[in-house]
């Protein structure tokens, strides 16, 4: 018999066998396991029962709380590895940890020492059986007979709902995520077609330098990712790092398929940085779909969302400048009771995002939509200085947001002091200081970075990663942003320990303290917060031939 026939026969046999004993479909609480998983996830993340009602619990002994106020994930975080805040240790509740017994790390401590070392020395308990899990969730008593801290709520769940939740916990962070094995933790960075060679170099040199240095120097740390700090021992957390470059070409509609192919060929744990000249949305959507973290793509055209999870941005980019302008205008004294506002925008996504940020924030502040007008200028209209001057002279509105680049400067003279005008420094780029002197007194400029006078003290550190780079392009703020990305990543890897779950990396970064790094005055974090810089200055230019930017607002404007 030829090999091929044998294979067919075996296949047939397999088919017969599987027909004889129909492939067992796993069910949980009488439903397909997959469906139970989705319902369990909703319980864990949103505090809603399979019926859609809020879960009922009691916290601190006698305070009833509906699941809509907070859920398991609020304390144990999305990946279930727990948290440490305000002197309270929230233990892990993920599948892998629940299935393991826990032993005292320091068995012979007095109760006082135990209390002091509670982070490093969590109490011993056997592995959880399903019965023990149900018991601890209902009563707060663990399988070692210990009564948990009353901050861990007691849940009133019937047997069916309990089975669904337990099924979810058993599967939550139960196996390490793709992109990591016993030796290597793999990352990729995405570069789309059309990005200049200089920009690519400004990102890739510091990223590659970081990876090379990590692989060269960290071996000395034994089996730990970094030298142990505090109580975190991180035994077994050491991995080499690897970085691939994923290049995308062609129309953005085709990127998803290209990304799928890359990920299939090279499963990575997360994306780092990334460069594109257009909107980041296609890559953002891919990461949501694949549950793939993307840390700090170098873009000012992010997706602005309250709920998306996987991409962590430096800021909301152009949108955030528009928001800052709206808040600043809203707080200006001596405004008429219903100020008339006009947004004039050039074509393209940058101005569109500026205008959207202003519009949505203006409305959120309770300002009437009717008093806000918008006009889009074509490139030809923008280039025609005389035509533009005449047009602007006709506009009789008091507050004008000019989301256009420096081509508009010759036409600005038509504005008189009865106006207040706003421009975006990011859109103007190096031309920002060339705003005509005649209009500076009533022109405000959105400026999303630290005051330039204070910046050098922060940016100089970024140079440490630029070894081997011939030319530097500091005004693009690419290398400096990569430097910040690396600082946040290093801390994130340290805190992730050996628990290599993609969601856990994001959870750990969410628990980081505020950082003063290059470019942005402050980066701040929090569970679910996805835009680390929340601020933007409003500046004016000083008079004279070499004007300076003068701060006219707080960093965060409420």
């Amino acid at each position, binding site marked *: 018999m030829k090999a091929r026939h044998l294979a067919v026969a075996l296949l047939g046999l397999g088919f017969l066998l599987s027909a004889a004993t129909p492939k067992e479909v796993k069910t949980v609480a009488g439903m397909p396991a997959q469906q139970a998983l989705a319902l369990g996830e909703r319980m864990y993340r949103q505090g809603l029962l399979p019926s859609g009602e809020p879960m009922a619990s009691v*916290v*601190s*002994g*006698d*305070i*009833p*709380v*509906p699941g*809509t*106020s*907070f859920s398991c994930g*609020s*304390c144990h*975080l999305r990946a279930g590895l727990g*948290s440490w*805040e*305000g*002197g*309270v240790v*929230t233990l892990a509740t993920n599948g892998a940890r629940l299935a393991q017994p826990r032993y005292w790390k320091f068995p012979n401590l007095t*109760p006082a020492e135990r*209390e002091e070392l509670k982070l490093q020395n969590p109490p011993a308990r056997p592995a959880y059986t399903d019965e023990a899990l149900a018991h601890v969730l209902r009563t707060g008593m663990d399988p070692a007979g*210990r*009564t948990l*801290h*009353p*901050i861990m709520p007691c849940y009133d769940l019937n047997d069916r709902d309990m089975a669904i939740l337990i099924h979810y916990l058993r599967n939550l962070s139960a196996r390490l995520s793709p992109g990591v094995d016993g030796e290597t933790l793999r990352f990729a960075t995405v570069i789309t077609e059309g990005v200049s060679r200089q920009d690519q170099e400004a990102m890739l040199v510091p990223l590659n330098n970081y990876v090379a240095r990590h692989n060269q120097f960290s071996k000395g740390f034994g089996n730990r990712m970094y030298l142990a700090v505090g109580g975190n021992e991180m035994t077994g957390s050491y991995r080499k790092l690897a970085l691939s470059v994923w290049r995308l070409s062609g129309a953005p509609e085709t990127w998803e398929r290209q990304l799928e192919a890359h990920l299939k060929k090279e499963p990575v744990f997360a994306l780092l940085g990334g460069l594109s000249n257009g909107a980041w949305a296609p890559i953002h959507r891919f990461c949501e779909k694949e549950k793939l973290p993307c840390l700090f793509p170098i873009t000012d055209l992010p997706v602005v969302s309250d709920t998306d999870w996987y991409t962590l941005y430096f800021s909301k980019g152009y949108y955030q400048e528009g928001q800052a302008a709206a808040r600043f205008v809203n707080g200006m004294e001596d405004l008429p009771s219903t100020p008339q506002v006009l947004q004039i925008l050039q074509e393209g996504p940058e101005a569109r995002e500026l205008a959207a940020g202003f519009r949505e924030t203006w409305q*959120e*502040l*309770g300002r009437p939509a009717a008093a806000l007008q918008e006009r889009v200028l074509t490139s030809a209209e923008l280039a025609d200085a005389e035509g533009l001057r005449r047009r602007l002279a006709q506009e009789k509105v008091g507050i004008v947001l000019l989301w256009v680049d420096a081509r508009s400067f010759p036409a600005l003279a038509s504005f008189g002091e009865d106006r207040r005008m706003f421009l975006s420094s990011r859109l103007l780029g190096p031309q920002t200081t060339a705003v005509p002197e005649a209009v500076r007194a009533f022109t405000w400029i959105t400026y999303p970075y630290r005051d330039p006078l204070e910046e050098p003290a922060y940016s100089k550190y970024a140079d440490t990663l630029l070894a081997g780079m011939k030319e530097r392009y500091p005004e693009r703020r690419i290398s400096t942003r990569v430097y910040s990305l690396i600082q946040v990543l290093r801390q994130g890897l340290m805190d992730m320990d050996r628990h290599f779950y993609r969601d856990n990396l994001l959870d750990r970064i*969410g*628990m*980081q*303290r*505020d950082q003063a790094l290059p470019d942005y005055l*402050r980066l*701040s974090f*929090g*569970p*679910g*917060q996805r835009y680390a810089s*929340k*601020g933007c200055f409003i500046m004016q230019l000083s008079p004279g031939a070499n004007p300076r930017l003068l701060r006219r607002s*707080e*960093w*965060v404007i*409420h």
Partner: protein
Amino acid sequence: MLRTLFTSLLLLSLLQAGHELQAQGPPPYTRSLESYTVPDVVLVNQEGAKVRLKTMIESGQPIVLDFIFGTCTTICPVLSAGFANLQAKLPPDARIHLVSISIDPENDTPKVMREYLKRYRAKAGWDFFTGKREDIDKVMYAFNAYIPNKMSHYPLTLIRDPKTGKWIRLFGLMSSSEFLAECKRAGIL
């Protein structure tokens, strides 16, 4: 005689059980009487309205104050559940003003604060404030509650009796009955 012996034995064992629970459980909250000088800063509430903190606190209404933030894990959820539960239990004529002050003014915009209060089913009389970072720092300092890193904050509740202007400082987490008892003891219920 036998009965008294039995009762005292029972009492003794109850006491012991109580003692063991104490030794095992979290440290109980602590209580102290304090005087604070409220800084004269203008904060922003969940409606986006500007509010002078000093004027508001010294308006003659009893105040219960805590420090939280919108995306906080573990501590704030429990503090806020305590506020929500206290509101639900207050008699209709109680004029207690619940004041939550953000320690993450970067992220806590009026919109974030409105949504937070809604999650806790807050009723009128519970307000959430954000503001300029320096002003928030001043408030934290004034109440001896300054923390440089929001992730290491701790549970603190402050009660002000308008008759004396003094503050009761409660450090730690309380049950609902303890919280109500503290409000009564402070003379605001």
